[in-house]
């Protein structure tokens, strides 16, 4: 599994890490039960603070994509597949809406119209 962060990007480092793990889950490159790299090791490899990686992993846990257990590490959850794909689409939609000048309320209205 490849994770790359760009220190020159305006996107926060934890968001870059989180997005790549989400994409890996969505595309099936990591599957249910797979273990993600330990936070300390990933932080050392990427040259970032361990808390940056822990924040990214924490967000993924809150989204229901991974389980974080002491001693067992960070493990990809079964339900991750569909949710990750939807989240990725939602993020893309949100980014596009911002680009088009739509507010969050406009976007919500748009989604209600579709559904």
């Amino acid at each position, binding site marked *: 599994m*490849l*994770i790359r962060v*760009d*220190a*020159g990007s305006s996107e926060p480092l934890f968001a870059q890490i989180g997005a790549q793990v989400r994409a890996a889950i969505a595309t099936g490159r990591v599957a249910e039960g797979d273990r993600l*790299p330990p936070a300390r090791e990933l932080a050392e*490899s*990427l040259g970032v603070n361990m808390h940056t990686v822990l924040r990214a992993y924490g967000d993924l846990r809150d989204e229901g994509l991974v389980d974080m257990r002491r001693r067992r590490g960070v493990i990809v959850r079964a339900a991750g597949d569909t949710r990750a794909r939807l989240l990725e689409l939602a993020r893309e939609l949100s980014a596009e809406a911002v680009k088009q000048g739509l507010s969050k309320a406009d976007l919500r209205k748009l989604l209600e119209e579709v559904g």
Partner: protein
Amino acid sequence: MELVVDKWQRRMVFVVLPVVILGLVVVAAGLTWGDLPNPLATRFHPDGSATGSMPRNTWLVMQLAVAGLCAGELAHIGRRPTPDAPILAAVASFIGFLVGLLGLFIAMANEGHADWHDVTMGNGAIAGALGGAIGWTLPVVQMARRIAPPHAPYANRAMPFGPNEHPAWFGHTRSIGFALAGVANIALGMVIVVTNQAWVGVVVFAIGIVLLGFTSVVVVIDGRGIGVRSGPLGWPRIRLPLGVIEEATPVIVRAMAVGGWGYRGSLRLFRRAAWVLRSGPGLELQLRGGQRFTVSIDDADEAAAVLNGLLARAAMPRSG
């Protein structure tokens, strides 16, 4: 026309030869079985007198096992030749013919004797077996060289990385064989501790723990280089900085070609080392100073691309 010759060579070397090797053992034992002493003489002093013996059945089973292994390996090479085909064919052919010919000479020497102490076998038989094995092996290696594919069947690619990018690649390989062997040894060790000599049980138990340590291997590639370590134990651990690596190539690793499973060879002593849990995709690193390190790893293609990308970026002069 070239293809026809190639096919014929494959059949000759890798179908006929295994049959000849196994045939030597079967014919030698079959023709003399009734006239062999039991046990029969299997070890000899340089003066020709017998110094050791073995039960007839054990001798035959050992002969068949070794010859079968060599014949099977030759047949496999013929079916799916790899870049290491010549060295593999050399080892399998030499050992196979040596065992087959020695078995034949031992059977001939034992034939007609009631007691193995009376058996004699001159040095000429051993020299003949060695000469015969070498004589058969040389053309086998020649033919294996002709059917072996080139060493790097894959096009090597390098993933581009920006100057501010920090990539980290994590990969692993698991081996069910090592896990089963480890658990079996641990269980056996515990049984031996209780029922037999305690120290033997402790040794078997310890071997089980070591085998469990080889259940998986973890590979980490980042801007510093590559790290390879045992998954469950974290040791052994190898760290190769980017500066000592020349090139990374995805390869198909065959455990038999590197001497078996586990950690094989030594970068310091033999300039070649391999960490192999299973045959299949692997990463081969060409190091500065002519050393070569191979590790079996899933998704080796991407691992090589990341490492080559990091090497390419390191080689570029940095602006500013």
